[in-house]
């Protein structure tokens, strides 16, 4: 364990309904680091993020923030959920949503102020969402909503930003837009980013480290160390191949009883 870890998971296990969702997961995140939380659907990525947020109690292990057990309420972690359940008629404009990032957890009313308006406006510019600042958030596309929620999460100046599958269901140009906004802000603001995705390829240019999740266990390290057939086969508990083609990485598993010529791509998807 290195002392300069911002966040540290120590032997975290989660058991739900008699099933092991996470088994003995340990890794650390340093300030300003861009970490990809990669793995197939159902591997435990969302559960892992909820453990870090304090929304999911652990069966074993600990979550440490600056070497101390995570406090119940902590402003140093920002969170962008996978999906918003907002109807188009919900009266929240983009700027309202970003403003809620500052004080949406507080009771009582607040008076509008110029300083706040400017802060919100600057944040929207930083994520490239100023164009639709006055649109209702429920009317935006998935990619636009992601930008707004990134602004919402970053405006309270967290040191760690968690994003749950922010690239799911985005078209390729929105996907690249989100990744570059995140990489730029992570560097400029020294925010550590932990981003879950079932496809690692869009993240390859920006990812400092990878936490690969499969079957509730993780392999952690640089991309080149982790994305190796031996490492991933051990993780999946079955033989997988790692194929590099046209600069992209495919993780391919051979289901039991099928010979390897008929290997199919995992839902993890690595095929696109």
């Amino acid at each position, binding site marked *: 364990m290195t002392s300069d870890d911002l966040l540290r998971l120590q032997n975290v296990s989660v058991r739900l309904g008699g099933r092991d969702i996470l088994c003995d997961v340990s890794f650390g995140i340093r300030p300003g680091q861009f970490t990809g939380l990669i793995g197939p659907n159902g591997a435990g990525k969302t559960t892992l993020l909820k453990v870090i947020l304090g929304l999911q109690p652990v069966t074993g292990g600990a979550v440490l923030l600056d070497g101390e057990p995570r406090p119940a309420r902590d402003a140093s972690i920002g969170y962008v*959920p996978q999906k918003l359940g907002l109807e188009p008629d919900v009266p929240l404009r983009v700027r309202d949503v970003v403003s809620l990032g500052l004080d949406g957890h507080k009771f009582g009313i607040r008076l509008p102020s110029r300083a706040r308006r400017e802060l919100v406006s600057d944040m929207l510019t930083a994520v490239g969402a100023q164009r639709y600042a006055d649109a209702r958030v429920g009317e935006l596309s998935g990619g636009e909503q992601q930008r707004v929620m990134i602004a919402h999460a970053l405006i309270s100046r967290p040191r760690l930003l968690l994003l749950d599958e922010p690239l799911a269901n985005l078209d390729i140009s929105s996907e690249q837009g989100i990744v570059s906004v995140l990489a730029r802000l992570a560097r400029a603001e020294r925010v550590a980013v932990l981003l879950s995705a079932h496809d690692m390829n869009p993240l390859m240019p920006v990812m400092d480290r990878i936490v690969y999740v499969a079957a509730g266990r993780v392999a952690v390290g640089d991309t080149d160390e982790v994305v190796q057939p031996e490492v991933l086969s051990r993780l999946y508990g079955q033989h997988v191949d790692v194929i590099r083609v046209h600069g992209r990485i495919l993780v391919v598993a051979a289901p039991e009883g099928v010979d390897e010529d008929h290997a199919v791509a995992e839902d993890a998807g690595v095929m696109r």
Partner: protein
Amino acid sequence: MHYVFEPGFFSSGPVHVALAVGTVIAITSAVVGVFTVTRGQSFAGHSLADIATTGGSGAFLIGVNQFWGYLAFGAGAAAFMEMIGIQRRRGRDVATGVVLGAALGLAALFLYLGTQYSSTTGASFSILFGSIFVITPSTVPALIASALLALATVVALARVLLLTSLSPDIAAARGVPVRAVGAAYLMALAVSVALSAVIIGAVLSTALLIGPAATALRLAKSPLKAVITAAGIGVVAIWLGIVLAYDSFYWPPAGRGWPVSFFVVTLIVGGYLVTYLRRDPRRAGQEQAGQEQSIDAEQACSPV
């Protein structure tokens, strides 16, 4: 009709009470209603209204002011809904089929028994459809206090409710006690339903709660504007309803005023329908890419 305001309108005691109480309740209902629609809890609001009917008719049977019946049953039902999880689909099904059926069955029994013993034929009507002109003056302070309490609760929770609507997970991660906030909100909703039941009747109280809010959400974009618009619509509907009901005393069949609830609900529905005549500025913006001179269109859609 000789005048808009028929003779005696401004000197009538019951009209004064109706206007004062109606205004406070309309504002409370509309403001609570904006959050009800935003949270997708209109169904909970309607369930509370059905159960309030039972409370009102029970109170009538035992000779207590109906407001206390609405309030007691509404608050009890809110607590029960919180327990069974009204937000979950299964909870809704159980609530609709079992709880609401039982509640309205009891209401039928209470009203039957009550009218048998006291021969007050108007009781069923006033419980189901309201009686703003016959508010007992002694309950006025309680009505106003309850309204202010519900209003204050929702205003105090406003930001937290909005954050929770955006994402319950974000709210929880930021230390918001999501469940307790939901329960407090449901109580404010129960109080607000009980209050609307007093003025426009238990079965119609949802109209005063949801109608102005739904209309406001079609017109206003920001939370503050939506709340102000909804309150304005609610107050105008109540005032016009009271004026028209007073005037209707002179309409056929002469000598018998038409129910206020009819006017209020008709005005609210009419207002909602009128918003459909207005061209949706957002859609117009998308179609014409900023050619429209509407402020909304200009803001919503600079070309991609």
